[in-house]
């Protein structure tokens, strides 16, 4: 699988001839281009290049960033914590809001709450993250002045750097899509479980509502949610390209956008590869958790 991704990245890289023409300025002379091509080894046979690239990549070497004059992977590693932080807060917000809205909607079908839940589901799908970020800045930073317009500021607590309110807007903007998805899925999962016989039994035994919800409904609707949350986390990671650009959040997405605009080729490649790596890893982990939670599912 990983080899496949490596191959795909390599293949795309060479699809358009070679990356050297993209890297040099438009005023470079042909001899300069040839020199750079030789320096970077793009003049060698393609299979040799692939082998080199493969062995280097497996050792964690993805080339050097031109702009920072550093190994590209180091830069990626530096930026990871900020992105993980942003994505986790966003995921937490989305679960909190989405699951609540979904339960409220699903347990009172066809009520006002239900239409609200479905409305938020649709909004999450139709409002682009990058636009939402801009609107939030206009409302909450420019007009109300509640939050900073950009950047990440932290305070120290028990020796850890914890972001302050500067994370609220970016995380919220990032979370809306996931909130909508979770609201929709929770709603339908709750609707489905509500009609199961064991819920009717629990009800007829006269169990309290809270107990029915926590023991029977939520527990059983949680199983499909796990895989959705796994998928959503990868959405959050990619969505961070927009949000981190808008809010100048010093994470991976910002690094990628910056590397793209400065044509820092190896950096783009390293960032894209790393993100794919994480996302594929997450899919595996989700499958495993899924298996642990629901004993009915066993993979061969």
């Amino acid at each position: 699988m990983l080899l496949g991704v490596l191959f795909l990245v390599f293949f795309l890289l060479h699809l358009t001839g070679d990356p050297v023409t993209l890297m040099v300025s438009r005023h470079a002379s042909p001899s300069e281009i040839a020199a750079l091509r030789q320096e970077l080894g793009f003049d060698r046979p393609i299979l040799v290049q692939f082998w080199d690239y493969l062995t280097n990549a497996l050792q964690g070497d993805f080339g050097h960033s031109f702009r920072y004059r550093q190994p590209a992977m180091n830069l990626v590693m530096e930026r990871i914590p900020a992105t993980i932080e942003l994505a986790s807060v966003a995921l937490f917000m989305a679960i909190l809001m989405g699951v609540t809205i979904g339960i409220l909607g699903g347990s009172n079908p066809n009520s006002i709450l239900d239409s609200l839940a479905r409305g938020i589901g649709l909004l999450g799908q139709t409002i682009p993250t990058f636009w939402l970020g801009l609107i939030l800045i206009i409302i909450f930073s420019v007009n109300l002045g509640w939050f900073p317009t950009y950047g990440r500021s932290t305070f120290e607590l028990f020796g850890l750097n914890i972001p302050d309110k500067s994370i609220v807007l970016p995380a919220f903007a990032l979370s809306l899509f996931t909130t909508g998805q979770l609201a929709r899925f929770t709603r339908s999962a709750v609707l489905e479980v509500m009609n199961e016989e064991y819920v009717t039994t629990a009800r007829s035994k006269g169990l309290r509502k809270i107990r029915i919800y926590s023991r029977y409904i939520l527990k059983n609707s949680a199983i499909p949610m796990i895989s959705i949350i796994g998928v959503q986390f990868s959405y959050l990671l990619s969505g961070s390209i927009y949000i981190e650009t808008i809010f100048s959040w010093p994470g991976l997405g910002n690094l990628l956008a910056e590397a793209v605009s400065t044509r820092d080729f190896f950096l783009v490649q390293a960032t894209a590869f790393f993100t794919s790596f994480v996302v594929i890893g997450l899919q595996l982990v989700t499958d495993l958790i899924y298996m642990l939670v629901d004993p009915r599912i066993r993979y061969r």
Partner: protein
Amino acid sequence: MIKMKNHQKENINPESTGLLVDLEEDRSIRARLYYIWRLLWRDKAGLIGLIVFLIIIIAAISAPLLAPHDPLQQNLIASRQPPFWAEGGSFEHLLGTDNLGRDILSRIIYGARVSIMVGFLGVSIAFSLGMVIGLIAGYKGGRIENVIMTLSNMVLSLPYLVFVVFVAAILGRSLLNVILIFGFTNIPIFVRVTRGEVLRLREEGYIEAAMSIGQKTPAIIFKHIMPNLLGPLITLATFEMSAMIFYEAGLGFLGLSVPPTIPSWGNMLAEGRQYLTYFPWMSIYPGLAIVLTGFGINLFGDWLRDVLDPRMRRMKK
């Protein structure tokens, strides 16, 4: 000889399938249109979606007629005007002007062209190629199927946005590139859906019947499998189209879509972002256009899915 062949053909088709006979009944275009209209009228959300979608398509097609100004014409004296209802706005520029004095409303109307074009052409590429490849995978099976499915699962497991940004960064900014990127990166989704449907259809009784009376493979594919594929694929196509319009705007926002000289919603947002604090209308209205489009297509797509796939309809109730 030739005559006999014709005769045979005529003999086999209508009677063996028993379908054409039903179709000959009142299925004039008018009756069909009326039926569709009744289905739309019953589900108001779908109707609203279709209307919004049509408005945007019309805006895209007849942009030169509808736009009050030339979208590219700069007018520095009239630059940075707010929309007409705000202080300092005028009816000359209904939604105001940008930092170079270009009319925002006209730019939004012209921007619809890029979005609709990328959406339509991108989906057409993905739809046609995806369907053919999916048919091959599902119908042929064996090693070809394995190779095709491994490849498409690989692409599908990548984070889509990162993948597209990466490819767009390599290829450079042009309308054709954007269309090709979205067209080709969307093939695997269509392959997967097509193959799934083909596998399901192959188990159906009427396909087996067609096979057992010795119909040729192309005939089975074109007459029996393809018509049944269209429903799910068209539904998928509408959702993919709205996704492509979103991603195109997103790429534009990152400066990776069409060149900055072409007015597109994403490019407008990217420019507006620099003036966000002082001239927020520059980024509010192009974004609203994207939201409206997504809203329309999604509502319409939901309706299409319910109508084309009765199984989904039952699940919803």
